[in-house]
C-alpha cells in the first residue's frame, strides 16, 4: 500500500501543495523540450524531402556551434563569424548533395542512412582537425543574448526564469513560424512539399530534386546552428553534445518522422515529461531517470501508435 501511495498519490499531492515548484519544473522541462524539438526539426526537414534519416543532424549542431566559436576565437568579429558560419552551413549542404546524395540516388534507404554515419565521423574528424577537440565557451555576450535571471514571487513561492531560456524559446518560436510560412506560402516551399509527397510527380513539373536537397540540408543546417548556439550557451560547446542529440529519436517516434508540428509537440512532451518524472518519481528509484525516460516513453508509444502523434497513418493494400 505504501508503495502504491508513493507512486500514484503522493506526487500529485506534492504538485498541489507546492505549485511554485511544479511550475518551475514545468518551465525547465519546456526549455529542454524546445531544444529537443529543434534537433528533431532538423531530422524531419531532411527526412520529409529526401527520405534520408540523417544520423549526422546531432553532429551538425556541434559542428555549427564549433565553427562559430572557432571563427570568433580566431579573431573574426562575432556577427561576421555568424554570417560566415551560415555560409559554411550552406557549403556543407551543397557538398553533401554533390558528394553524398547525388552519387547514391535511387539506392536503398539503408545505404543513404549508412552514408550519413560516414558524414558524422567525417564531421567529427574535420571539426577536431580544424578547431581542436577541447570544449569551448559559446559567445553569448558577443551575440547580445541576454543573461541573468528573472524571479517572480508567485504561487506561494519564488519562480525564477533564466533570460537566456526565454530568449531561446522566443527565437525557436520565431524560426518555426518562419519555416511554417515559408513552406506553406512560397514557390520553393511548395516545391519542397511536392518533393516530400512524390518524387516522380515533382520531376514531371520540372522541380529540380538536387536544388531542393541543397535547400533542405541548408535549412537543417540553420536549425542546427540555432540549436548549437542555445545549447552551447547552457553548457559548453563540445562533441559530447551529439549524445544528447540522440534524445531526438524518441521525439521523432512520438511526433512522427514527417511532421513538423509533431517534432515540436513531441519535443515538449519529452522535455516536460522527463523533468516531471525525474522530480516527482525519480527519488523513488534513486534518480538519474532522465537518461532513459524518453526512450521508455517512446517504447510505450510504439505499442499503441507506431506512426506517431501526427505521422501519416500507414495503410497498406493487400
Amino acid at each position, binding site marked *: 500500500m505504501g508503495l502504491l501511495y508513493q507512486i500514484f498519490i503522493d506526487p500529485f499531492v506534492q504538485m498541489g501543495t507546492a505549485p511554485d515548484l511544479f511550475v518551475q519544473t514545468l518551465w525547465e522541462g519546456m526549455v529542454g523540450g524546445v531544444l529537443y524539438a529543434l534537433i528533431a526539426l532538423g531530422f524531419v526537414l531532411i527526412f520529409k524531402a529526401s527520405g534520408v534519416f540523417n544520423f549526422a543532424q546531432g553532429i551538425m549542431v556541434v559542428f555549427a556551434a564549433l565553427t562559430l566559436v572557432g571563427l570568433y576565437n580566431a579573431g573574426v568579429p562575432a556577427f561576421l563569424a555568424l554570417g560566415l558560419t551560415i555560409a559554411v552551413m550552406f557549403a556543407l549542404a551543397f557538398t553533401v548533395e554533390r558528394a553524398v546524395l547525388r552519387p547514391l540516388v535511387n539506392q536503398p534507404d539503408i545505404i543513404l542512412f549508412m552514408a550519413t554515419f560516414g558524414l558524422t565521423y567525417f564531421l567529427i574528424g574535420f571539426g577536431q582537425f580544424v578547431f581542436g577537440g577541447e570544449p569551448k565557451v559559446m559567445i553569448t555576450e558577443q551575440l547580445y543574448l541576454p543573461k541573468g535571471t528573472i524571479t517572480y514571487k508567485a504561487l506561494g513561492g519564488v519562480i525564477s526564469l533564466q533570460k537566456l531560456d526565454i530568449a531561446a524559446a522566443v527565437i525557436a518560436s520565431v524560426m518555426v513560424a518562419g519555416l511554417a510560412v515559408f513552406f506553406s506560402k512560397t514557390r520553393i516551399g511548395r516545391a519542397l512539399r511536392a518533393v516530400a509527397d512524390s518524387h516522380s510527380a515533382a520531376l514531371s*513539373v520540372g*522541380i529540380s530534386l538536387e536544388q531542393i536537397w541543397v535547400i533542405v540540408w541548408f535549412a537543417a543546417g540553420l536549425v542546427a546552428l540555432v540549436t548549437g548556439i542555445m545549447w552551447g550557451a547552457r553548457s559548453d560547446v563540445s562533441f559530447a553534445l551529439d549524445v544528447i542529440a540522440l534524445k531526438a529519436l524518441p521525439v521523432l517516434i512520438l511526433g512522427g518522422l514527417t511532421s513538423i508540428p509533431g517534432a515540436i509537440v513531441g519535443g515538449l512532451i519529452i522535455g516536460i515529461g522527463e523533468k516531471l518524472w525525474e522530480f516527482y518519481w525519480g527519488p523513488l528509484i534513486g534518480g538519474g531517470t532522465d537518461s532513459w525516460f524518453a526512450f521508455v516513453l517512446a517504447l510505450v508509444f510504439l505499442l499503441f501508435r507506431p506512426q506517431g502523434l501526427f505521422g501519416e497513418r500507414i495503410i497498406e493494400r493487400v
Partner: protein
Amino acid sequence: MRAPGGPEVAVGDVLLAVENVSLSFGGVKAVSDVSFDIRKGEIRAIIGPNGAGKTSMLNVINGFYQPQQGRITFKGETHAKMRPHEAASGGIARTFQNVALFRGMTALDNIMAGRTLKMHSNFFWQLLRYGPAMREEVQHRRRVEEIIDFLKIQEIRRVPVGRLPYGLQKRVELGRALAMEPELLLLDEPMAGMNIEEKEDMSRFVLDVNDYYGTTIALIEHDMGVVMDLSDRVVVLDHGIKIADGTPEGVKGNQAVIDAYLGVAH
C-alpha cells in the same frame, strides 16, 4: 486537331520524333528499336496489350528512363536521351497511370506546383513574401484559377487531394499538367479505372485541351472506343516492338494488331 466530320489528318510539322529507341532493364527488353513521330496539334494514341512498353515509351520521352539506343528529336533538337528537367522546361507535361499527386497538398497548391518553372522570384523575396514574390504569386494564381474553371473543379480547390475521389484526382492531375502550359501533353491512361460518365467527362476535357489550347497530346489508353473517338493517329506496341502505325481505322483492321490483342496460335 481533327477536322469536324472529315477523316483524321495529322496537321502541322513533326513536334517530337523517336528514332530506333531501345530500352532494357538488365536482360528484359522493354522497348526495341521503336520509331514514330508526333505532329503538332494532333492527338496521338499509343496502344498495346499489357507489358507492351507503352509507359516505358512515355518515360523515355519525358526523361524518366534513359534509353540505351536511339534518338529523340524534340522541337528540332536531337537528344540521345532526355532529362526530366529538360523535358519539363522544354514544354513536355505528363500525368501518371496511378495518379501521382502531392497528396498532402490542396488541389490549388497541386496545380500551382505546375507553375514552378514559370516562376522566377528569388529565394530572398520569397522568404519575405513581399515585393516581386507576392506580385508573381498573384499573377500565376490568376492563370491557375482559369484552369480550375476550365476543369470545373472550383468547389474542391481547398481540399487536400488525398481525400478526393479517384476521378477528381485524375482531373487535378490534368490541371497540374495544364498549368505548365505544355506544348506536348503526355497522358498515361487518363481514363483507367473510371466509370462511363467520368470517361466521357475526361474525353471531353482531352478534346477541349486539344481544341482551345492547341496542345499536342500523346495518350496511352486501353479502352478502344475512347482511342477510336479521340485520336488522330495510333501507334501500336506489342512486347516492346512497334507492330502498326496509322489512322484508328487502319490500325483496327490490321491483322498483327488483332493477333496481339486476341492472341494467336503459334
